[in-house]
């Protein structure tokens, strides 16, 4: 290989965390003026690898070459000085500072700040690349895509010639994603090298010049995008041929289970999070809920679960054995004590659904510890349940006394879903059920949801990957800004239609 052709080269990089080997002798190279995708499942070590380029982690072994010279990146500062800029998946911004203050954070320069000069320079960048940004706005007042813009401007302000983006499209609508890709192509044309970390195959194929694949911390290989297909990349990523089709059984005897009408909620600051939401969820169907992040998905599920303060509207539950219960204005505890079997797999698994530092037995206890009389808690029944779940769902854990935090993402989700379906629910709500899971675990979860559907459970599933929702669900409800912008038939709709509904501002209600 000739010198100078590569912007960055990684040779035999190894990084361990305790006993876990996150990267094992990984080699990788990105050319000048190209977009390289790093593809891999969650937990394959993509982010760890890139964090060694951005100076967050330090490699245990191996070499890093920038422009053909071996370098040591011991801190983020070293990384900037080499012209590397990373845009993290979780934005690295200080909420109470303005965009401009965030952008100049940690930079050298005159000790007394000259904010007008900084703002002028930022405006210049904004004009050159066509961003939309107010440099004097505080971060906590911004939307997710505005925050991402701040991150990109921050990197450019520092004069980075090499950009690393970690899952940049996870929080964007299809339209915003297109805009981002256009900017990235402009940068490539200007000679920048760009690395984009992703697990979305269509984006890889659309945007990048070459694809490098990682699997379980191992480097598998790099291919030209033009020679690759979704199937070939999946095989590299998973290590075996895998069918990408999701099974969708026909609905079983759908009958009205949950009826929500005119539901509105507010958050603590008094800002509306849900605006007049009206829909029906049927038994034996999977109702998908789509929308850009923060459109009210979380609040909707939590309102049904009795965890939100409802300002107006009603939630009615129709038990299979007949009758009607009004769930609105009931707390989670009230709903349980009514004997309504409503299960909820929240988005934040270790922060809400489970307690990370507790073992499986204690986590099983979360549901039903208070059942039965007496002062002391029963740990025998939960232990049995934990052992059953380990066996049935093939949870990889040393034993049921291991803190769930130390399990992998897929196993954590199996524990949570296993507990929630163990109570034979009539309504099952899941939020982002496969986020952070590898492909095999994802399919296990899809199967579990289908199994519940076949049992006649009303399943509500909030998802972010539209391709998955389109294949898995019967109907898809689209939220935008807390209001429903449409409820469509998943068998006939298209991704584009949903994408448009996701940004439509909820003027017209598309109820059936």
């Amino acid at each position: 290989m000739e010198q100078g052709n590569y912007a960055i080269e990684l040779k035999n990089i190894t990084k361990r965390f305790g006993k876990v080997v996150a990267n094992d002798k990984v080699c990788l190279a990105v050319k000048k003026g190209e977009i390289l995708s790093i593809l891999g499942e969650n937990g394959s070590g993509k982010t760890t690898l890139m964090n060694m380029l951005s100076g967050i982690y330090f490699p245990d072994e191996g070499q890093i070459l920038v422009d053909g010279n071996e370098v040591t990146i011991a801190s983020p500062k070293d990384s900037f000085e080499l012209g590397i800029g990373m845009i993290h998946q979780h934005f690295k911004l200080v909420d109470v500072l303005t965009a401009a203050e965030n952008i100049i954070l940690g930079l050298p320069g005159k000790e007394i700040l000259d904010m007008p000069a900084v703002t002028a320079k930022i405006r210049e960048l904004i004009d050159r690349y066509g961003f939309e940004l107010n440099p004097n706005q505080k971060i906590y007042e911004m939307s997710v895509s505005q925050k991402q813009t701040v991150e990109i401007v921050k990197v450019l302000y520092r004069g980075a010639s090499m950009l690393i983006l970690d899952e940049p499209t996870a929080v964007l609508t299809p339209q915003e994603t297109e805009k981002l890709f256009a900017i990235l192509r402009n940068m490539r044309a200007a000679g920048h090298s760009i690395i984009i970390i992703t697990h979305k195959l269509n984006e890889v194929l659309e945007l990048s010049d070459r694809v490098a694949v990682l699997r379980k911390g191992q480097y598998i290989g790099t291919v030209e995008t033009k020679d690759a297909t979704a199937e070939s990349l999946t095989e590299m990523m998973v290590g075996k041929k895998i069918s990408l089709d999701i099974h969708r059984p026909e609905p079983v005897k759908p009958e009205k289970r949950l009826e929500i009408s005119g539901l509105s909620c507010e958050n603590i600051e008094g800002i509306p999070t849900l605006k007049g939401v009206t829909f029906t969820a049927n038994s034996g169907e999977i109702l998908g809920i789509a929308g850009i992040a923060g459109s009210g998905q979380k609040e909707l599920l939590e309102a049904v679960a009795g965890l939100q303060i409802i300002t107006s509207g009603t939630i009615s539950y129709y038990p299979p054995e007949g009758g009607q219960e009004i769930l609105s204005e009931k707390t989670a505890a009230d709903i349980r004590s009514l004997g309504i079997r409503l299960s909820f797999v929240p988005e934040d698994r270790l922060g809400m659904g489970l307690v990370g530092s507790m073992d499986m037995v204690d986590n099983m206890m979360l549901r039903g510890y208070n059942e039965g009389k007496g002062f002391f808690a029963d740990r025998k029944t939960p232990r049995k349940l934990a052992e059953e779940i380990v066996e049935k769902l093939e949870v990889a854990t040393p034993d049921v006394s291991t803190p769930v935090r130390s399990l992998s993402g897929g196993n954590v989700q199996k524990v949570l879903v296993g507990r929630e379906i163990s109570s034979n629910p009539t309504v099952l709500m899941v939020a982002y059920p496969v986020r952070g899971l590898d492909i095999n675990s994802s399919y296990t979860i899809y199967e579990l949801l289908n199994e519940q559907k076949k049992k006649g459970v009303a399943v509500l599933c909030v998802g972010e990957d539209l391709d998955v929702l389109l294949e898995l669900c019967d109907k898809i409800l689209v939220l935008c800004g807390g209001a429903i912008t449409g409820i469509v038939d998943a068998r006939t709709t298209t991704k584009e239609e949903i994408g448009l509904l996701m940004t439509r501002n909820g003027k017209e209600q598309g109820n059936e």
Partner: protein
Amino acid sequence: MGVFVIFIQKAIGQGIGMLYGALGEIVTEKSGNLNLGVPGIMYMGGIAGLMGAFLYEKSVAQPNGTVGLLISFACAFLCAMLGGLIYSVLTITLRANQNVTGLALTTFGVGFGNFFGGSLSQLAGGVGQISVAATGAAYKKTIPGLSNLGVIGDIFFSYGFLTYLCIVIALVLAFFLAKTRKGLNLRAVGENPGTADAAGINVTRYKYLATCIGSGISGLGGLYFVMEYAGGTWTNNGFGDRGWLAIALVIFALWKPLNAIWGSILFGGLYILYLYIPGLNRSTQEIFKMLPYVVTIVVLVVTSFRKSRENQPPDSLGLPYFREDR
């Protein structure tokens, strides 16, 4: 009129020590470290300053007040920094819990102060009561001329240099935090160390420096009590609970140095108010002495009612930061 002027003077006299403690704690807390060791650190600063002056005055026949002042000032600052260093090593490098470490440091610092305060003369060969007359006088020296300007002079110009230094530190600190690059970086460290780290700021260095320098400033509060307030003598537990009030003042001032200036005078006033309210007997005086604490509690409660994003403590306050946490 006269009573009022004296009240203001005394309130400022009480307030400045707390203001030093609070300013030091603001610097520390802006880096995300909640140092509950401030009361101990103030004792350490006070006794070290006194010891420095004492050993100097004992070793020369004709002690020079200015030299004693410089020596004691340096001793107080350095010894208080040492306290901050102990806290920093334990909480930053060894990641010990901040609350527990701070309380241990207070136990240690208060013991340190009282131990040396009580045994200093004995350790030095039994000369009786500690007294540093020359140095004490130097600290009490007011600005010539200005202090004779009647009421204005009495209220504004009747204090020793530590009082003015404290106001200057508060002003400089306010400017530093709002208008300088390092101040911006420091605020980022306290708000979100992960972000500061990714932006190339050396979080560990900022935390160490902020905590040690902050402790040094807090220690000057102890020096102030010993030298200007008590005139160069030591009484065991003489500071009482002013160290905790300094921490309360930080909350009261909403982490803003300029608020702390008038807050300290208010706290000082509340602290001695019982002496100036006519008709109080001994028992009701004790009730009045609760005021500074009750006011702090009220401020705590009121700030928790109004969830303004601008008046909150630094977001990572009390939490340890380490990068390779997995």
